[in-house]
């Protein structure tokens, strides 16, 4: 579903080159629920934005649903984003001037879908997240948990092949976080491929597979001395 091979992302200025990702390899199969973890600045979000075709990369290969995306132009990348990918952000990123219905409608509009089908899909996805009665509410009238559910409904409305979630519970209290996570698990059980970036070990533990990123590279936790050092610090034992 999502395969990156020797992928690199370099930010260049006149005097310095900074590698956000270096020799980055990952292969996410269809239907997997993968949690991507790593310390701040390790490159998790950069990975997610490249995976979501929101950013280009400097080298390597990236196949998304069998398509090599490195040479696609903006229109083609936008079309893939619209049809194959659903985003869930930590800050929800709902458009404040649009009500719930109109927010969920945005990706469907860009797909050129007919009004009747748009309405059907929006109401179905709202039913799915339990907010059908809030269609005419504005984001400011909803709780954080409800806003994130709307964001998930927006991501689901287009029936994407891949859901990319960036700290989806980062701005929520424990109870709301749990309910959002349960929703993601339900979605996964129905067959969706989910890649979730998170700092939260509890959240990561509920994914099928964990991928750890350190210094812009995927590492095998059992073999990485940096992990053992950090792990010992957390547990109070010597590795």
């Amino acid at each position, binding site marked *: 579903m999502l395969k990156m091979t020797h992928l690199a992302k370099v930010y260049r200025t006149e005097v310095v080159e900074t590698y956000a990702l270096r020799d980055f390899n990952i292969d996410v199969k269809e239907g997997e629920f993968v949690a991507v973890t790593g310390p701040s600045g390790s490159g998790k*979000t950069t990975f997610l*934005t490249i995976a*979501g075709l*929101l*950013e280009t990369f400097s080298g390597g290969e990236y196949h998304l649903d069998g398509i090599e995306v490195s040479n696609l132009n*903006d*229109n083609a990348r*936008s*079309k893939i*984003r*619209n*049809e194959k990918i659903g*985003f869930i*952000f*930590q*800050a929800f*990123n*709902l*458009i404040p*001037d649009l009500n719930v219905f109109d927010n969920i409608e*945005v*990706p469907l*509009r*860009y*797909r*050129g879908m007919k009004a009747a089908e748009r309405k059907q899909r929006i109401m179905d996805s709202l039913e799915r997240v339990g907010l059908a009665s809030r269609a005419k509410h504005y984001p400011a009238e909803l709780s954080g948990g409800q806003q994130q559910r709307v964001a998930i409904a*927006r991501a689901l409305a*287009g029936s994407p092949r891949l859901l990319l979630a*960036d700290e989806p519970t980062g701005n929520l209290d424990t109870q709301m976080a749990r309910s959002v996570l349960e929703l993601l698990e339900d979605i996964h059980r129905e067959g969706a491929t989910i890649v979730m970036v998170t700092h939260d070990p509890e959240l990561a533990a509920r994914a099928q597979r964990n991928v750890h990123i350190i210094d812009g590279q995927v590492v095998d936790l059992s073999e990485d001395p940096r992990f053992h050092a950090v792990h010992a610090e957390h547990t109070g034992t010597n590795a």
Partner: protein
Amino acid sequence: MFAYYLQLGFRSLRRNPVLTALMVMAIGFGVAASMITYSVFRAVSGNPIPNKSVQLYTPQIDGWGPQQNVKGEPAAALSYTDAMALMRAHQASRQTLLYGVNMSMLPGGSHSLPVAVNGYAVYGDFFPMFEVPFLYGSGWSAADDNGRAAAVVLSEEFNQKLFDGANSVGREITLDGHDYRIVGVARHWDPKPRFFALFNRSGFQDPTDLYLPFTRALDMQVSPTSNSCRGHLNFLGWDDWLRSNCVWATSWVELDSTAEVARYRKFLEDYAKDQQRAGRFAWTPNVRLRDVMQWLDYQKVVPPESRISLIVSLGFFAICLINTIGLLLAKFLRRAGEIGVRRALGASRGEIYAQYLIEAATVGLAGGVLGLLLTAVGISGVSLLFRPEIAHLAQLDFSLVGLTLLVAVFATMAAAFYPAWRAAQVQPAWQLKSN
């Protein structure tokens, strides 16, 4: 998607109401200033007879010489001697002389008082040359010109006044104590500017009441409304005045090809040389032959204040638009986060560009509506800037309403090219990371 963008555009008018109000006011005031001055400029600078303006020529002959003419240019009218010489030579397919007349008319009834009427003494060719439309009857023939017929053509407005708009052909009116038979009633015809009669006139005077034969007017010794003379001004009667160097008759000829124009110009030069040889002109031949638009330009029919105020108001509009660029930039880039979200959800750069361009168009439309209101108010006060006969030409008609809205919308869209481009360049990854 256009309807969706339009819907988003109208919705965004309510967002940042202060910024929106500033932009709408900038566009509204800018477009109103431009349209008010343009309405005057349009009225005075248009081609009054577009389908024939390159076939109608007015000849000028310098009968005063370099000591007495103005800046080396022949006078704007002809003396009787030169005017009649051109008519007798008959070098054009159609030709006419004309001069303005003021006469008195007895409307009828024993107790009625004479009323002043204005008109032109012309030849019969005048009507087909200038494509004067007729409501009833027609103009008169060359035979009527030669026979000095007591014929008259009324304007539709004057016919309405005298005969309640009825067909008056065949009836008679009394002008300066002489009876004239009505041969035609011209349908409303009042070209602006009145290009054919610009001698000592602005071209924007009151509508014409009637036309009578040039030859008859001379027989009746009907004086021209305007003349210009050099040297001694003591004349021993009408014939002495006719033989003087006073200029007062405007000549028009219809020339259908460049060859005819060249031939007529040669004829004018030869005529002036003949006059020089005969001792009447003590200077080298100095003649002109101008078509309608050249004539309007030479006569400076477009008042300088009209051109200057149009330039100033367009400059003001440009400044308003430059301010609008800044305001649009601020308005659009404030929504970088939303742009990032839309890009993530599948909008291409082109779609973001189109959305913001159409949003700018809605701002322009709102500015255009305000501009229309201000234009309507401004036109009523345009007499503060222009002479009354010019000021009354400024009118808010359908074409100006449409033009105001179009200019406002398209100018604002042009101003939005750069802000919309900047909006489309927003990097979604950066925006979503920074949220």
